[in-house]
C-alpha cells in the first residue's frame, strides 16, 4: 500500500517541466467558450443553467475531448520510460509490474479530475460573465456531481489505451488508436452501447436524463460490467506486456 503511494508520488515528480501535459488542460476550456457564442447567438431568454452546463461541460468534453486528452496523456506517461530503455532500471529496484501500471492509472485519475474541475469552473465563469445564466445551488450541485462521475469513469474507460501504450515502444500507434477508439465509442453509443467502454461510460452518465433518448433502455449494471471487464482485460494485458517488455 505504502509502496504504491510512494510510486504515485514519484509519478508526479516525473512530470516536472512537461509543458505539454499542463498545456493539454487548456482543452477543458474549449467547450465553455464555444457555448457562450452558441447560446449568445440563439438569444434565448431565461436560459436554464443545467442546460448550459450540459452543453458546455457535459457533452463533447467527456465524449471526445477528455478521452483524447487522456489517451495522449497515457501515451506520454509510458513513452519516456519505454523510449529511454528505463524499464530494466525500474524492474531491478524492484518495482511490481502491476503497481507500476496502477500508479500510471492513478495519475490519469488525478489528471481527469483536474481537467473536469477546470472545465466546470470554466463553464460557470463563462456563463456568469456573459450574463447567460444565474448562479443557482441545484445546478452547481448537478454540475460538480456529474464532473466527479466523469473524472472517475473516463480513466477506467481509457485503460485499454494505457495498456496499449505499456506494450508499445513508439507513440504513433497508441495516439492513433486513441482517436479511433474515441470515435468508435461515440458511434457505438447509437448502435450497441454495451460493447465499448466509452459508450458504456456515456450510458452511465446519461442514465436518468429525460432528454437523451437512446435506442435501448439504459442498464447501469450492465454498463458497469462492460467497463469492469474491459478494465480487467487491459490490466492483465498490460501486466503481460510489461513482463515481456525487455
Amino acid at each position, binding site marked *: 500500500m505504502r509502496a504504491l503511494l*510512494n*510510486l504515485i508520488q514519484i509519478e508526479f515528480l516525473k512530470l*516536472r*517541466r512537461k509543458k505539454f501535459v499542463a498545456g493539454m488542460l487548456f482543452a477543458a476550456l474549449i467547450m465553455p467558450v464555444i457555448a457562450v457564442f452558441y447560446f449568445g447567438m440563439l438569444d434565448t431568454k431565461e436560459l436554464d443553467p443545467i442546460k448550459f452546463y450540459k452543453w458546455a461541460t457535459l457533452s463533447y468534453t467527456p465524449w471526445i475531448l477528455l478521452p483524447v486528452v487522456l489517451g495522449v496523456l497515457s501515451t506520454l506517461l509510458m513513452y519516456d*520510460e519505454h523510449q*529511454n530503455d*528505463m524499464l530494466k532500471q525500474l*524492474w*531491478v529496484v*524492484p518495482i511490481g509490474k502491476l503497481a507500476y501500471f496502477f500508479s500510471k492509472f492513478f495519475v490519469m485519475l488525478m489528471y481527469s479530475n483536474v481537467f473536469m474541475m477546470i472545465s466546470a469552473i470554466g463553464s460557470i465563469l463563462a456563463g456568469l460573465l456573459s450574463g447567460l445564466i444565474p448562479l443557482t445551488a441545484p445546478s452547481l450541485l448537478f454540475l460538480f456531481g456529474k464532473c466527479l462521475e466523469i473524472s472517475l469513469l473516463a480513466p477506467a474507460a481509457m485503460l485499454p489505451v494505457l495498456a496499449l501504450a505499456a506494450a508499445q515502444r513508439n507513440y504513433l500507434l497508441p495516439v492513433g488508436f486513441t482517436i479511433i477508439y474515441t470515435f468508435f465509442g461515440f458511434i457505438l453509443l447509437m448502435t450497441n452501447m454495451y460493447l465499448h467502454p466509452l459508450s458504456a461510460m456515456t450510458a452511465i452518465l446519461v442514465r436518468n436524463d429525460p432528454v437523451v433518448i437512446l435506442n435501448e433502455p439504459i442498464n447501469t449494471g450492465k454498463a458497469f460490467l462492460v467497463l469492469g471487464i474491459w478494465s480487467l482485460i487491459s490490466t492483465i494485458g498490460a501486466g503481460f506486456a510489461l513482463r515481456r517488455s525487455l
Partner: protein
Amino acid sequence: MDNLAIECRQLTKRYDEQSVVNQVNLNVKREHIYGLLGRNGAGKTTIMKMILGLTAPTSGEVLIFGMPLQRNEKRLYPRIGALIEKPGFYPNLTGTENLEIFAKLRGTTQSDAVRKALDVVGLPYQDRKIFGQYSMGMKQRLGIANAILHDPELLILDEPTNGLDPIGIAEMRAFIHNMSAQFGKTILISSHILSEITLLADDIGILHNGILLEENTIAELEKKNRKYIQLEVSDAAKAVLTLEQDFSIKDYSVQDLHLLHVYDTSLDMGKINQALIQQGITIISAQRCNDTLEDYFRKVTGGEGIA
C-alpha cells in the same frame, strides 16, 4: 558465509533454436572483480540480463549470494547496483532530480546519498542542466551514480567504458578499481577489450559464441603472459657469471639457487647452452616463455582473437 556472490549453473539462453548462451557456469567470488571478456555478440549482455532477472533463462539457474532471484527480489535487488547497456533517465529532469526519484524508489543507506553519489562520479549537485542535454560521458556517469546510489555489495557493469573518451575511460577504470580496492565491492564487468580486463579484474571469464571457454584468475593467466627465458641450472652463481661475461646480459633475476629468468628473449639459446656446458654447468631445463595474453586468447578462441 557463502563465498560466491554470483553462481551460474548451466545457464542457457536460446532464441528460436539458436543458442545465444550455452551452458555457462560462471562464478563470481565475493570482493573480487570478475571480468567477462568477449566480442560483441558473444552473449555478455544476455548473461548479465539473466543474472539480473531481466531475461528468463531457457534452462539453468542463477544464484545470487546463494539464493535464487525469483521470490527473493525484495531481498536481493537492493544489494545489487547495475548498469546494463546505455543508461536511461527522464530527459525532462536534471541529474539530481533523476537520482532523487531512484532514491525515493529504493530507499538509501545514508542521508544525502544523492549528493554523495554525484560527488563520486564528478557530476555537479543541484545543476540546472536536464538529462536530455547531457553528453554521452555525463549520461554514463549518471548511470554509474545510480548504480552506486544505494551503496550495493555487488556491481554489475556492462561495458562501462563504451562511448567514453580516453580520459573518461581512464577515470572509469580508476573508479572501478577504487570501488574494489577501497570499499571491497564485488564487481562483475564485461568488456570486449582485453587490456581493460587484465588491468582491472582479479578473475576472468572468456566468452566466445555463447560458451564460457575459460574461467581463471588473472594471476594464473599472467603466467602465460611473461616474456623471459627460464633456465634451470646446477649452479646459478656460475651461470650468472657466464651470462654477464660472455653475453653481457644484465637484465635477469635470480629466483633461487638453481632458477634464473633472463628477460631478453631474443637470445641465441644454442650458444648459451654451449657456453654454460663449457663452464661445467649442467642445464636441467631451459624454457622460452614468449606468449602474450593476446596470443593465448587467439589460441583459446580458435584463432579469431578477442578484441
